[in-house]
């Protein structure tokens, strides 16, 4: 029995977004979309999170912060880049201070384009990420099993 897909807790980080996508992310929590129907909770604490939702592009100021947040999330975890800035840097791609999308700092699992990304597409992206989360859990479990089998063999 796997519970991970039924209870994804989200950490939302605004890298350098204009707040357009952030408002849409928060709109998912409102009565109209109500993502808590799927057990999704916006938790605001990396140590409790499963899904890392990032909006906006990467610059030198937030690179260290975003890596730190990513490292603090316990495995298994997935990263969802929300909005065109987070997926590729968007219109800011050529800016002197932007190094590109979120994947220039941490590995990204799901890209949700849009400016701003619609709540429907954000929810769709997060639901897709749950499949990847489940794969990662199975892989983690497999790794743990081979590890214990290895120690028993010794």
């Amino acid at each position: 029995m796997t519970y991970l897909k039924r209870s994804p807790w989200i950490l939302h980080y605004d890298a350098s977004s204009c707040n357009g996508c952030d408002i849409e992310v928060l709109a998912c929590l409102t009565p109209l979309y109500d993502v808590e129907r799927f057990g999704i909770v916006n938790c605001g604490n990396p140590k409790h999170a499963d899904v890392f939702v990032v909006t906006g592009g990467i610059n030198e100021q937030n690179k260290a912060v975003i890596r730190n947040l990513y490292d603090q999330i316990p495995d298994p975890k997935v990263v969802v880049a929300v909005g065109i800035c987070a997926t590729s840097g968007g219109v800011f791609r050529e800016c002197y201070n932007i190094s590109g999308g979120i994947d220039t700092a941490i590995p990204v699992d799901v890209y949700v384009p849009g400016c701003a990304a619609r709540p429907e597409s954000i929810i769709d992206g997060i639901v897709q990420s749950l499949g990847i989360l489940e794969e990662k859990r199975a892989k983690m479990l497999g790794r743990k099993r081979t590890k214990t089998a290895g120690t028993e063999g010794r």
Partner: protein
Amino acid sequence: MLVTHALIYLLLAPFIGGLVAGIDRKVTARMQGRAGPPLLQPFYDVGKLFEKENLVVTASQNVYALSYLVFMMVSGALFFAGGDLLLVIFAFTLSHIFLVLGAYASCSPYSFIGAERELLQIIAYEPMIIISAVGMYMVTRSFFVAEIAASSVPIILYLPGVFLGFLTVLTIKLRKSPFDLSTSHHAHQEIVKGVTTEFTGSNLGKIEIAHWYENVFLLGFIFLFFSFSIPVAVAAIIIVYLLEILVDNTFSRVTWQFTLRSAWIVAGMLGLVNLAVLYYLSGGFLV
């Protein structure tokens, strides 16, 4: 007989506590005009937490989280076995001290603030809980839960003030607004997660299960006030819990100063005055 009660509590309390938490989330969502999560969502959450990696700052966090759960189980089991109410309250407080120690062990500013707030909450609710036990002794002449529960006296009629005071501190204990200072169930940020900030995976799951045990124990405590009639007691428990959900959704979080002051004023005004009146009416003799 009484040992079986304790065993039934140990086995069933997590299921009842989880279901109550599920109903709580559903009712809360409906109050906010949302559909809300499935009824079994709290079980999915805890199941998920046990599937996650357990990250700790220091290994002692594991010990403290487990101790919190074990001592919560012990205090609840003692209560349902009909043991000494004072011993139950001391074990109950001790379990929270383990939670505070676990938060202090993690060397994180958010945890520290949560731990300090948890201590302040203990200071705030402890007098009222002791007064409740003393009040029940004055009515039934016994500190033993079994004898209090078996008495045919309608305790609520003798202790209405104590009961209202107990409801006030119950809000603190159920971690509901306006008194959810040290940690909260709502999807809020940083400081509000307080003591649980640095607990991950299975440790957080254990803390959640301990909270379910705690809630069932506290609802059992309400039962004592109405123990003369089981239907009335069950109705009272349901009404009290729905009232707590309403209060949770109506009020915003207050400061720790206000929490401490209001809890103590309530304990003094409703609790002590109730006990004094009871003492006076019984002509200086304990009832």
